[in-house]
């Protein structure tokens, strides 16, 4: 699918996938902006290491009492052979 020549049919499939019901004016307006939107998105694709991670995307919260959970106790018993 070429970005600069997306057909109305292909674009309608994108809108349907998004779960939206657009009237004709809304559909045409979105279609008009689509090429520029793809340009913006494509400009983010620069050569980078596969391991370049958006590390700020998710920060695991500290578990205040991880050692006290039933799951952790079970796992500890398995590892040490304690019953």
């Amino acid at each position, binding site marked *: 699918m070429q970005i600069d020549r997306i057909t109305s049919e292909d674009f309608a499939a994108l809108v349907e996938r998004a779960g939206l019901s*657009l009237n004709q004016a*809304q559909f045409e307006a979105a279609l008009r902006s689509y090429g520029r*939107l793809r340009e*913006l998105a494509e400009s*983010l694709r620069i050569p980078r290491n596969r391991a370049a991670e*958006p590390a*700020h*995307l998710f920060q695991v919260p500290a578990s205040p009492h991880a050692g006290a959970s039933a799951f952790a106790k079970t796992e500890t018993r398995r590892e040490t052979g304690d019953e």
Partner: protein
Amino acid sequence: MMPEIWELGLSAISRLIGQRKLSPVDVLDHYLDRACRLNPTLHCFSTIDAERARIEARSSEAEMSRGLYKGRMHGIPFAVKDIIDVEGVATTNGSRLTINEVAKTDSAVVQRLRAAGGIYMGKNETQEFAMGGPDFSLPFGPARKPWDIERFTGGSSSGSASAVSAGAVPLAVGTDTGGSIRTPSAYCGIAGMKPTYGRLSRRGITPQAFSLDTVGPMTWTVEDNAIALEALAGFDPEDPSSVEIAPQPWSQAPALGLQGMKIGLVRHFHEEEQDRFSNECISAFETAALLMKDAGAETVEVRLSPLRHYFAAQRIIMYGEAAAIHEYDLRHNIEQYGPFSVERFLPGYLLTAVDYVQACRRRGELVHELAEVFRFVDLLLVVGALSVAPRMKDVARNSLVNGTPSANAPFNLTGSPAMSVSAGLNADGFPLSVQIVGRNFDEFSIYRAAHVVEAGMGCGNIRPHAAR
């Protein structure tokens, strides 16, 4: 001739209230009278809460009579953008969809201003859900620019900028996801601070994009702004973005000048877009650079990645997050939204998950790049708005995607504190501006530099025609 109360501005009114030379009740009555008189022309308020404000002003006066003075915000009227909750008042978000959604509690920023003695006066008109444009089909607004009511105020904190600029309220609280405090501040000739992401709590504020949203003060002058930030800032465990960090004595910053500071000049942002940024805005940038140098700062050229890279990452993240927030309503109640909003929300639904992740990866790289630059400079000077305010009828619905890259957006992406400060008037008498950007959590240095620009330009006392 004695100036009227509104001509004094927040800091002078605050001093006079503290000296018991002005009564909070008189101050409020004066601003209420102006707000009610100007609003039919400027559409800057969606709600004016006169009755409750008068009760609070009388209470402030009684507290001061008993010797209880809460500080610089005590007795100062304020308004908030209509996406910010105030107990018992509808948070309309400027939308038919939420026009009757009454907030059960105050937002964190309103709680803080009230605790500091501020008096809630009303809600300022906002572009719909902080995303729409100057839309005449909606219940409120659009707010008008007091310098010329046919021109755009900028958005989305449109009513906030209009009201402050016209002297209808001394402090308005706005929000900024891609420039929504700074652009209207620039167009309306006032001081607008987008603090560091996490400095102010966003609890009780309708989100636009979780990882970009900030809230901050909009005032006539830099000093006014610093006083307001002292009341607004503080850790809030109920906002996941809130950072526990000590405040700074921001109101002391304007007096310090710039001796010994190093300012990075980011000329390449506007040079890359040379046919799109107006010459008068570029001249304002150069004049501000000279004023900073004259005040004792060292200025050096700084080169970052192209403005378009920052802009693209900010836009993709903003569209994706905003689309997630509005997914249910745009699927089921799309007819309730105005045409500007629909057109501006739709791009988010046409992106892929991979687009969003690539934007986040780029964000990480650009955040790192900016942090490296701030190892060598204390502040950045960046061009403000692209031009003076355009005519309202010329604002395109698709300008968020198709328009010129905004020089505000990069600093939502990086989370940096950034301020729009008035930088004189053009030949037609419309405000110009520049943007000053600091290290994370160093709003103090920004206020130092912003005051130098404001004082040097000599525009602190110039008021728009509509304010008269």
